[in-house]
């Protein structure tokens, strides 16, 4: 065996990769990401680090900052959950049914993407204010939306809806009819089919949509500040607080909050990504 092997001249070194261009493209990717994302973000941390640990802590442990942060993340989370449920429903209707005006409605879904967020905020405020069309109906019931936390959730739901619809829709379209029919022939009622066959198939996409909607909600500023009322400690979101600090020339305070938001967002998105990788692995992607 060994004699035969040694008799064969050693082959010239094979090229390391079958797909050429790895080096230049990776180089460009890193350069590009650095210029657009990493360096600006690093700047935030650099500025914040100037405060030192104690300085950071004193800014972040203030009740107003804590309230603003928990409001921003909490409201974004609730809004993303609402979108996950109803966005899936909307996607389902678009994929499965034909109805007049479908194309028009389909375009409407994307409007929150395109609309200047301030316009959305003003429109929602006008609707939900105590004397607005919807607010008028809710006030007698004792429900206040505008200038409350509910209002913030409403605005974030509006902004985040297309993220869920547009990520779930194509995946749902891929779920073969066969699967539902197979479940039915095996005796599964509709509820079982939806929860055990269809939902697991679209779950990774749903998680992505949820993450996008959530991330958008955390950073949202324009639409929220009109409807929120911006009462410190009650309806003041973190991005607004950063703007306020900047207006007061408290750059260090602003960067401290920004850095905190970055860290929390990054941690949450990382968790969501891991969740997704896990659900993908279970689904054993083709």
């Amino acid at each position, binding site marked *: 065996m060994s004699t035969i092997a040694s008799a064969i001249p050693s082959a010239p070194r094979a090229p390391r990769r079958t797909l050429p261009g790895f080096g230049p493209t990776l180089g460009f990717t890193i350069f590009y990401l650095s210029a657009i994302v990493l360096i600006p973000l690093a700047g935030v941390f650099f500025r914040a680090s100037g405060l030192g640990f104690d300085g950071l802590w004193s800014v972040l442990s203030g009740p107003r900052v804590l309230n603003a942060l928990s409001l921003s993340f909490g409201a974004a989370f609730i809004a993303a959950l609402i979108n996950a449920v109803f966005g899936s429903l909307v996607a389902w209707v678009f994929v499965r049914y034909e109805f007049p005006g479908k194309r028009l409605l389909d375009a409407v879904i994307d409007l929150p993407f395109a609309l200047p967020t301030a316009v959305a905020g003003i429109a929602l405020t006008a609707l939900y204010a105590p004397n607005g069309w919807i607010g008028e109906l809710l006030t007698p019931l004792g429900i206040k939306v505008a200038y409350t936390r509910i209002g913030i959730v409403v605005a974030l739901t509006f902004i985040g809806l297309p993220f869920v619809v547009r990520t779930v829709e194509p995946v749902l379209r891929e779920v073969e009819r066969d*699967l539902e029919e197979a479940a*039915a022939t095996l005796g599964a009622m509709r509820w079982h089919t939806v929860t055990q*066959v269809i939902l697991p198939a679209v779950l990774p996409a749903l998680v992505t949509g949820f993450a996008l909607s959530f991330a958008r909600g955390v950073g949202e500023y324009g639409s929220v500040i009109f409807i929120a009322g911006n009462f410190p400690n009650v309806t003041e979101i973190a991005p607004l607080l950063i703007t306020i600090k900047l207006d007061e020339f408290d750059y260090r305070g602003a960067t401290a909050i920004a850095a905190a938001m970055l860290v929390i967002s990054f941690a949450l998105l990382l968790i969501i990504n891991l969740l997704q990788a896990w659900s993908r692995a279970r689904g054993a992607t083709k």
Partner: protein
Amino acid sequence: MNITIRDVHKHYGSFHALRGIDLDIASGELLALLGPSGSGKTTLLRAIAGLEPLAQGRILFGDTDATGLSVQQRQVGFVFQQYALFKHMTVADNIAFGLRVRSRKLRPSEAAIKQRVEELLALVQLTELGGRYPAQLSGGQKQRVALARALAIEPRVLLLDEPFGALDAKVRKDLRRWLRKLHRETGYTTIFVTHDQEEALELADRVVVMNRGQIEQVGTTDEVYDFPKTPFVFDFLGTPNVLPGTVRDGRVYVDGSSLPLDQTSQHPAGRVDIYTRPGDFRVVDAGVPGIDAEVFELQRTGQRLRLTARVTSGDLLEIELPHPEPEQKLWSVGESIRLRPANFSVFPQGATRTDSAPDPLADESIPGSGVSHTVAEHRARARN
């Protein structure tokens, strides 16, 4: 369970997919629905499963009328062409699905489900693969998982839609043999859809040949092959040679010679088309009744000798002769020979042979149609 189908109709918009299907399926039978695409065979299978609501007609499982039953209530095992396995579930969970979704009253205990899954995995010879996901399986393995999943619910009937369509030739052959064995062992009434005549003839007890939403012929594999009732069946089960002729006084006159007709069965009178299969011809000596022809082309492939002969009218016949003896003298091109069809069928001239209706679903070629078309074209030319 025996199945009775009566006067079943199905429309898709203006397309009449099933036109009055009547069929009796015996308990424990292995039945093939054979036909070209668009013939309605899959629609019929889906109608039996309850996946297609019917415009008209009744379907009975045993003595119970199943027409109004939902898919879930019918308790049929359906194996889809693309298997339709649940990708996010393991093989074992896929198989257990039909048991786990049962209402609490009817659901077996988790231990019983586990045991049943083990039995089924053994039955389909996948014992080691219960923990795998469908994406980690080969096509043939997926097919067997789909089958095990369908069997798990103890179906009243097993329905298979093009069960071997997506597999390569070797796997297909093995799986076919295996399915035949499985059917013998389990005894489920089984109906499968195929467009492959070889598959139907090899696997089934009985074959239902369908064309344009209607049943052309039902019979055992031998019956439909040896005694095709319609030109379509003859054409679909093989590659026929068609010669024009005339029936008179119990003989059929073709191309200047005449052949006796089988007196025990009825034959049309007047102008007819004579259908023969390539393997039905023998080369005979002059003096024996037969058709005079001239060797047009000769090709030997291993065991078989393929001969194209031109009869005096100009028509070409595709003939397959058995393995020639080593010392046997082969004919040369242009040589005159006399051919005698050992078997042939006679149909009134102009009877529809192939499905030539415009068919939006026809995207695959019909097996066996290639040669017959060429023959038909030659004939057309000869007549002009």
